[in-house]
């Protein structure tokens, strides 16, 4: 019965935020479509594509987690036969699901465009590293929103993460080892690329595990 309640909570979140998921997927695809044009238009497409993912990573934790508390829906939800740990499980799964649907769709779209066009396949590894950054940011913001119970903390982390994006892009672009693979006709999975991807997924796993641990230790939930 309780597993079913977690499923109800997840389904509820999907119903509440489905417009956001659809809009972000459509806008991301528009960005991808524009990427195929050369020159400045293509650059706008890249910017639009990444902006969609970054904005979604910021909005979803606010809409799904922070608003439960700020909008005083949390008392309503916690009056249902659910524990704090189950609420956390439902929130983490629904938030991840709602982000992963547009994210995975757009990742597949981006890879299809690279593979199906004259864009060098050597860009695939670095594209994956850059596309995964908003996923990392999203997981960190969701974790802080759940554990910190405060809009202020979430906004603070959002600002820090957006600042980190601005640092990561030029650092990656200036790395000679990474740049050398950009023009290759086949993807080059260098140790640096694998380390970067591994680090991103390690941060995601750590953020989710720490969130779960801290939430399960809370004594006052509402």
């Amino acid at each position, binding site marked *: 019965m309780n597993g079913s309640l977690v499923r109800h909570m997840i389904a509820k979140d999907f119903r509440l935020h489905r417009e956001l998921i659809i809009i972000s997927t459509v806008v991301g695809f528009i960005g991808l479509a524009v990427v195929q044009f050369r020159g400045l238009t293509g650059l706008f497409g890249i910017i639009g594509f990444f902006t969609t993912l970054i904005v979604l990573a910021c909005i979803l934790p606010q809409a799904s987690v922070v608003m439960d508390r700020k909008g005083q*829906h949390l008392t309503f939800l916690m009056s249902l036969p659910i524990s704090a740990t189950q609420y956390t499980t439902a929130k983490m799964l629904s938030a991840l699901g709602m982000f992963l649907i547009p994210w995975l769709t757009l990742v597949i779209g981006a890879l299809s465009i690279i593979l199906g066009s004259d864009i060098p396949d050597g860009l695939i590894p670095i594209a994956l590293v850059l596309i995964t950054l908003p996923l990392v940011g999203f997981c960190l913001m969701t974790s802080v929103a759940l554990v910190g119970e405060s809009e202020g903390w979430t906004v603070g982390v959002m600002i820090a993460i957006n600042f980190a994006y601005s640092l990561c892009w030029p650092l990656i672009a200036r790395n000679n080892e990474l740049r050398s693979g950009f023009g290759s006709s086949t993807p080059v999975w260098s140790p640096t690329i694998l380390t970067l991807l591994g680090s991103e997924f390690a941060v995601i796993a750590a953020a989710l595990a720490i969130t779960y641990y801290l939430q399960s230790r809370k004594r006052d*939930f509402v």
Partner: protein
Amino acid sequence: MMDPVIRMEGVRKKYRYFALDNIALELQPGQIMGLIGPNGAGKSTTIRILMGLVHQDQGDVRVLGYRMPAEQIAAKWEIGFASEDMRLYGAMTVRWHMDFIRSIYPRWDEKYAQLLLKRFGLNPEQRIKGLSHGQRVKSTLLLVLARCPRLLVLDEPTTGLDPVARHEILRELSAVMKDEGRSILFSSHNTHDVEQISDQITFIDRGRIIDSMDKEAYLDRWRRLRLEVPLGVELPALPGIIDIRQDGRLAVATANEFVPDLANAYENTGARIQSIENMTLEEIFVANVEHSREEVGA
């Protein structure tokens, strides 16, 4: 005797600027308990501990036989909880919320829910954000009542409502009690609302239960005696009198254990009884809180 639906014993919870101290409560099946206290008295914290939303530092809490917070999931299947700070999703309709709750609770009574929609004058297709405060409270109560809980826990449900909406809600709560297996714990700082529907009343102030008994017992035991005191006569402190206020030759004594002998005892000192008045629950509450604070301060 049946097991109580709520039993709290020696419950303590400490915050930086507030503490619940040694809370003990007991609610029998089929009873309505009004939990009355001023703002910040600890009503909501007590109720949150009862619901397992806040963990007590010490003490034993059992609701419907379940240990809280450990068995809160099992308990919450049978509890309908609504609080003044509870909000539904503004962008969604009343119907959406009804469908959500119905999908969770197998005991959801759709016929009763439809009846409540009519009684409360609610349009199920209306979004929550378009409803008045009273309609929102009624929507929340509908969601709680139609799941047919054995125990209703209501934290300040009538706060901010107009008299008509308050009356509608109190009438519905009274109707719920026709099913004798149900019980209600109802917190408020509005003594008038509590007086209308409660069987049992508990006063809480500054994190402590200061008194708890049947409503009728309160109304029977508490009296205000108006006295005329001749010059040179000093009113004695009698057992059962918790407060004496004197202004010149007129004095008012408040009794929390009134017996006719008290009046005789004053008359024997030379004082003249002008009147012996019944007290309203609000007057009893205020006198009780003031007396308790004086005792703590002494």
